[in-house]
């Protein structure tokens, strides 16, 4: 489309140079239209750049806060992992400590029983019992600490999953909406551009048809069909009163030229 317009522009410039004296008024109008179309083309491309920038900004703004949200469950996960690892290390430490204590107590119980070779059996027995009870108590404490850590980990994971689901839902909703809107805008832009191209193409086709048929049509008085077609095209631009009046006046001029051509042919016969 763009190329076609430019080609026309060159033709017109050529004509402006050659026929300025006899076609000045028409040429001025034509050049004015060429400039107007050039401005529109520029506007379309600069607008395209603007949309690109708008979209860049939109994507930028969207991703900043979305990143923050995605970072939240991620941080929770990392914290959870750290808590878990810490818990495990702590559990291992407590267990080792408890085992060591139990071992020491048992060892000391044995040492006491060994030391007191002639000691009372019940005395040794009590020491052993005491060692076992301590061991049990320590073991129980380790189990409780382990269960507490496990439930803390569960909670952290649960929160992480919930945050993930929530963010996914939000992101999905926003993504769908954005895509839908953007598609609408793109479609509208395409329609506008197509409409413009169609309008220009129609004008070119009308003129080409006129040029191809003019000689024969003037002779055979068959311009009526062509005129009807052009009038139909003019109906399409009726919304623009100023343009319509101008075109209508030009159509009358064309008809006057056609009539006079025929009248002169009759005189010549």
């Amino acid at each position, binding site marked *: 489309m763009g190329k076609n317009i430019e080609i026309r522009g060159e033709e017109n410039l050529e004509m402006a140079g050659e026929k300025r004296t*006899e076609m000045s008024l*028409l040429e001025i*109008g034509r050049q004015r*239209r060429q400039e*107007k*179309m050039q401005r*529109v083309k520029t506007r*379309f491309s600069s*607008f395209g750049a*603007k*949309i690109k920038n*708008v979209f860049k900004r*939109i994507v930028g*703004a*969207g991703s*900043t*806060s*979305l990143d923050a*949200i995605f970072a*939240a469950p991620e941080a929770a996960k990392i914290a959870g992992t750290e808590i878990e690892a810490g818990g495990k290390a702590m559990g291992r430490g407590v267990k080792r400590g408890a085992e060591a204590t139990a071992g020491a107590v048992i060892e000391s119980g044995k040492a006491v029983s060994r030391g007191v070779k002639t000691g009372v059996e019940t005395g040794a027995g009590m020491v052993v019992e005491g060692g076992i009870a301590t061991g049990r108590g320590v073991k129980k404490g380790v189990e409780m600490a382990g269960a507490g850590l496990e439930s803390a980990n569960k909670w952290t994971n649960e*929160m992480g999953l*919930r*945050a993930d689901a929530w*963010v996914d839902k939000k*992101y999905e909703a926003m993504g769908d909406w954005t895509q839908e*809107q953007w598609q*609408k*805008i793109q479609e*509208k832009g395409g329609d*506008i551009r197509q*409409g*413009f191209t*169609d*309008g*220009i193409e*129609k*004008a070119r086709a009308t*003129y080409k048809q006129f040029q191809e048929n*003019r000689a024969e049509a*003037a002779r055979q008085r068959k311009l009526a069909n062509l005129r009807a077609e052009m009038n139909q*095209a003019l109906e399409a*631009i009726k*919304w*623009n009163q100023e*343009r*319509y009046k101008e*075109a209508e006046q*030009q159509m009358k*001029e064309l*008809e*006057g*030229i056609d*009539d*006079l*051509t025929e*009248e*002169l*042919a009759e*005189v*010549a016969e």
Partner: protein
Amino acid sequence: MDKNKIIKLIQRAAISSELKAELLQIVEQEENLGKETIQKLQEKLAGKADEVAQNIADIMAESATDKFNQDMDSWEKDVNDFQSEVNKKADKIDLEEARKGM
């Protein structure tokens, strides 16, 4: 060939006064009016018809251009609305909301 008749035809033709003047000048310049004169006038008219037809095509193109501009205005508004809506949505979805959702 009747010079006056030809002049009359030109004068009452439904054409612009500029074109009339150009045609009358051709007639006035001819010493002997004949078929060649008529041919000259018809050639002039044919050239003019081409110009006028192209002018009509140009007007059609200009109209398409005007309409294009108008459509662009409404399109631009759509894009601006879209931009502001998306920005609003993006603002809403921030870390505070994420925490609230959790």
